[in-house]
Structure formats: C-alpha cells, structure tokens
C-alpha cells in the first residue's frame, strides 16, 4: 500500500514538472509570436543603398528613410522622430589597419568634443558588424527636444569610412537602444558596387 502511494506521488510530481516545462516553452513561443516583450517583437526590413554601397536592417513598422545630402548618404528615422540613424560616408586614402580602429575612435572622440563642446560622457568600445570591426562611441548631449543619447559607430571598409550616428531621446533609450544596436550590427558594406534592389 505504502509503496503504491509513494509511486503515485512521484508520478504526480514528475507530471507537474513536465507541465511547467512545457508551459514555459509555450510562453516563450507565445512571446515571440505575439511580440509581447523587447526586441523580439520588432520585425525588420533591409534598407539597401541605391548605389549599392551598403545595406542595413531597420524596423518595418513606424520607420522610414529620408532624403540625404552632402556626405550623408542615408537617413533612417522613426516617424515620430524619437530615434534616428544617420549614415555618413567619406573616402580614405588607404584602408585602416585593424590596430588603427582604436586610434580612429580616439580621433572621432576628439573631433566630437571639438564640434560639440557640451557633449559629455564619452565611452568607446570595439564592436563587430556585418561589414567588419569598428568602434562604437557613446555620449550624451543636449538636443532640441531635451537630453539625447548618441551612439556613433565608425567602420572602415577598404577605402570607405562609414559613420552611423544613432540618436535617441534619453528618455526613450531603454526602449530603442536594442533596435538601434540591431540596425548598427546589421550594417553591411560590400567592397564593390552591388546591384540595387532597394
């Protein structure tokens, strides 16, 4: 008798554990399917440069591209302007060596400090994207609508230097930073021209 009760209890506990595991798995799938939490809820579209110089992914919903000018080759922004990514391009006389990425970041910071004396909180780190290794600089500044957080990603691809300036209101940083990081890391710059499929 005692042995039978004991085995039933064991079976019930095992069943409860199995249900819990299955429920958890379903919950994760549900979160992913119904876009309940975080980054995983965003679906992305690939933006391809008309000249085929680069491509990157941007959110399908609520984002669009705007006409660039000068050395700015693309502007992608949320429709409500709470987050923007500006892509800038310049030519190098020689490709940057891998060990020069850090030096390039220091020069970028110097230039930013010179151009934006009120900017503060500069940090830099190395970050890989689909185009290769680059440097990511983060800093804060006073924007037209209040404090802003800027992430500048610089990456050299052969003799091309790309700068991605991702700007977001400080208050919306937690919400949009993952999206901006996804856009940066999806940046891909072919060495040669590619067929435009934009």
């Amino acid at each position: 008798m005692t042995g039978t009760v004991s085995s039933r209890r064991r079976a019930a506990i095992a069943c409860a554990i199995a249900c819990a595991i299955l429920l958890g798995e379903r919950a994760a799938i549900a979160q992913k399917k119904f876009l309940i939490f975080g980054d995983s809820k965003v679906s992305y579209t690939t933006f391809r440069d008309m000249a085929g110089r680069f491509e990157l992914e941007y959110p399908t919903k609520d984002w669009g591209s705007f006409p660039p000018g000068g050395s700015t080759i693309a502007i992608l922004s949320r429709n409500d302007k709470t987050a923007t990514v500006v892509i800038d391009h310049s030519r190098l006389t020689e490709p940057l060596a891998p060990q020069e990425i850090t030096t390039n970041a220091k020069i970028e910071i110097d230039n930013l400090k010179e151009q934006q004396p009120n900017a503060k909180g500069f940090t830099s780190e190395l970050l890989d994207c689909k185009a290769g290794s680059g440097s990511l600089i983060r800093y804060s500044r006073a924007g037209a609508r209040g404090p802003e957080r800027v992430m500048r990603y610089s990456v050299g691809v052969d003799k091309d230097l790309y700068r991605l300036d991702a700007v977001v209101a400080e208050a919306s940083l937690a919400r949009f930073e993952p999206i901006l990081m996804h856009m940066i890391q999806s940046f891909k710059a072919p060495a040669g021209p590619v067929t435009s499929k934009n």
Partner: protein
Amino acid sequence: MSKLVIFRGDAVETEIHLGGQAVRIGRDARNDVVLDDKTVTRFHAEVVRQGGHYFIADMNSRNGIWMNKQRIKGKAPLTLGVPVTLGAYELTLEDDLSTSDLDETPGGNRTVVGAATVAARDRSAASTSGRPSQAAAVMRKPAVFWSGFGLATVLLCVVTYAVVRRVTARPAPPPVAGDQAPASSAAPPVTTIPAPPSVDANIVAGYLAAARSAIDERNYDAALQDDILPLLNLDPNNQDALDLKRQIEEAKAAQLAPKPAAPAPKTAPIVEVAEVPGIPRKANEAAADYTARAGRVQTNFREAGRNLEKQDFAAAIPRLQQVERDQPGYQGVDALIADAVAKQKRLAEDAVDSGQKNEQAGKLLDAVRWYREAQRIDPGSPGARDRLAALNDRVTQEGLDAFGRAEVLRKRNDNAKAIELYKQAIELLPATNEKRADAMQWLEKLKP
C-alpha cells in the same frame, strides 16, 4: 627726399641734403663733406643712391664705419633714423622736407665740419623718434652756445680725465668691440656685455689711430706734435700714448744714427704693427702672432656678445674663455664669464622647473621641450638630463601615439592635423626609432 644729419657727441655738426649724386665723406678737403677730425680717414666713406635707397660704402677707412655695433664691410643700406658711426661722428639718415639738395647746387655745396659746433640739438628726441628735434634751429644763439660750450669744455676735461684713467686701468675696447648687452630685458645688469665706449674714449682712440697712421708714414714729427702731445695733455698717463711717444723717439734716433756698413746677417727685421687698444703686444711677440691673437680676441669677444644676446651660453662661454686665455682681463672678460655661467645655470634651472610643472600637468611634450631648452642653455644641466632620462619611455610612447594618430589622420585626408602630429612624433621619438624616419618622410610628402 632725404638728408644726412651729422652729429658729434650730442650736437649736430651739419645736415646734408641727399640727391642722386654720390656724397664723399672724409678728412680730405676734396670730399663733399669734410670732417676735419683725426678719427676720420682722408677718404672715409661714400653715400650713394641705388634703386631708391641710400647706401654707405667704406672707402677702406682706418677706423671703419659702424652700424648697430657692427663694422660695415663694403657697402650697407642706410635706414631712416639708424645712426652710423664714422670716427667721432654719427650720421643719421632722415626725411628731408626742404627742397635743396646736392643735385640742385652742383659743385658748390661742399660742407666743411671742423671743431666748431654748428648747433646744439636734442638727441633724446632723436633717440626716441628716430628723428632729431626741429628745435635745433631755435637754439642757435651764440651767447647761449658759447657759455654752454665753455661749461661743456670744462666738464669734458674732467670727464675725459676720469674716463681715460679708467680706460687705461682696464684696457678699453676698440670701437669695434662695443658689443651690446644680451637681448633679455630681464637679465641682471651684471651679465651684460659692457656698453660701447664713450665719445671721449673714441677721441682718445682717434688720436692714437692718427698717430699710428702718421708713424706708418714715417711722419714722426706730425705724429708727436699733432697727436701724441695733445693726447698726453688730456691724459698724461695714457700708456698707449707713452708707448707711441717712446716708439717715435726710438724711430727718430734710428733715423739719425749712421747706417751700419752691412746689415746683421741673422737679425730679424723689426716689424711694426699697430697695437689694438686693450690688447698690448707681449714682449718678444712676433708681429704675425700678435695680429693673429688680437684678431682672435676681438672676433671671439664679438661673437660671444652675439651669442649672449641669443642666450646661447653654450657657445658664448667657450669663446669668452678663449678670450681670457688670449688676453686676460680683456673688457672684464673674467667677470663676464662668471656672470654668464651664473645666468646659464639660473635659466637652465628655470627651464627645468617649467618642465616639471608641465609634466605634472600631463603636458608631456611641453615638458620635454622645456627640458631640452634647459639642455640647450646648459648642456651639462643635470636636472634636465635626469628628467629626460626618467621620461624616456613615456616620451617614446607619446611619440608612437602621435605617429599612429598622424597615420590615421593622413588616411582620413586630414593632412593639416597629420602634419602637426608627424612633427610631434619627430620631436618625441628617439633618432633610432624607425617610425621617426617614417614620420619625416611623410612630413616631407605632405608639406604644402
């Protein structure tokens, strides 16, 4: 149009309106401007106009022409307000608002300047503005002039006596050696090169020069009567004058003595050589040796003065030491050496202090510059040497960083900043570092 104003001491002797013709100046009556003084050679100088500018040329004069304490060799441009010394006279080129000049009075505008002073003039205005005061004309009042002249003569005698005594106690420099003080305004007075000799000393030098000239021409009576005796009247103890007097007496005695039947076979000929003031000829010193030594003393002393002006003590002190070896006590050279060494040490220490302050502030390049400046001032400065040695690794790292940044900036087409950083790298990296050579190559390529 310009004019040449001729001063003697503080007084204007005359003014010459310059035109297109050359103006010859000298003691000889055939000159356009006759300066009747023994410090002036018969044909001393010539002022010519070329390409809209006036030049003064030395006609191989004995005492030379001096501008900014330097003897003019050949020809030099005249600058408005900058005095040129010619014997006991000073010539200054000035703007001339009047219409007369030598061109308009051909052949008839000879100016003779003798001992008499034409007009007193305010030199202080001239020294501040570069042009003499126009008040001179007003001051041509004979009564005032002659009473002033009398008083000035008495004072001149007293001052001359005192100055000549002092000059003979410590040999006076020739007019050539009147090098000026180092440029630094902060320099203590003890470290300056002595000021140029006064006019009184020039007069003494003029008498001596004229006497030597007459002796060279074997005109012993003229030398004695016209030069030596008047000078000894002014300064009975003037050793140079006494020496020349003795020399004249010996020469006259030799002239009177009967010539030997045959010259002594192994006696070296007596070579007369004019002594440079302040550099007496040693007993038994050959003329060539004396000339070489005197030239060395003067050159080294003059160059040392220039080096001190540039605060180049490392170059100045050895020269002064050489002067001291060649002619001990020349122009107070021993005191000059001591002062220069003290100033060198102090400036080097100041530079090291500045370097340490920059080092503490994290300005490594500026610190290194200061330490190197200290080493330039005093190559043996232990403070600078030790600090540079301690910074060696950091300096090299800083140089490599500068080079790395320059490389990236160059690749980014920011050549202006790249050039600056290549320069820093060259300054910071040791000569043996290969990056330094690369930096120099890139600098050469990028230079506009």
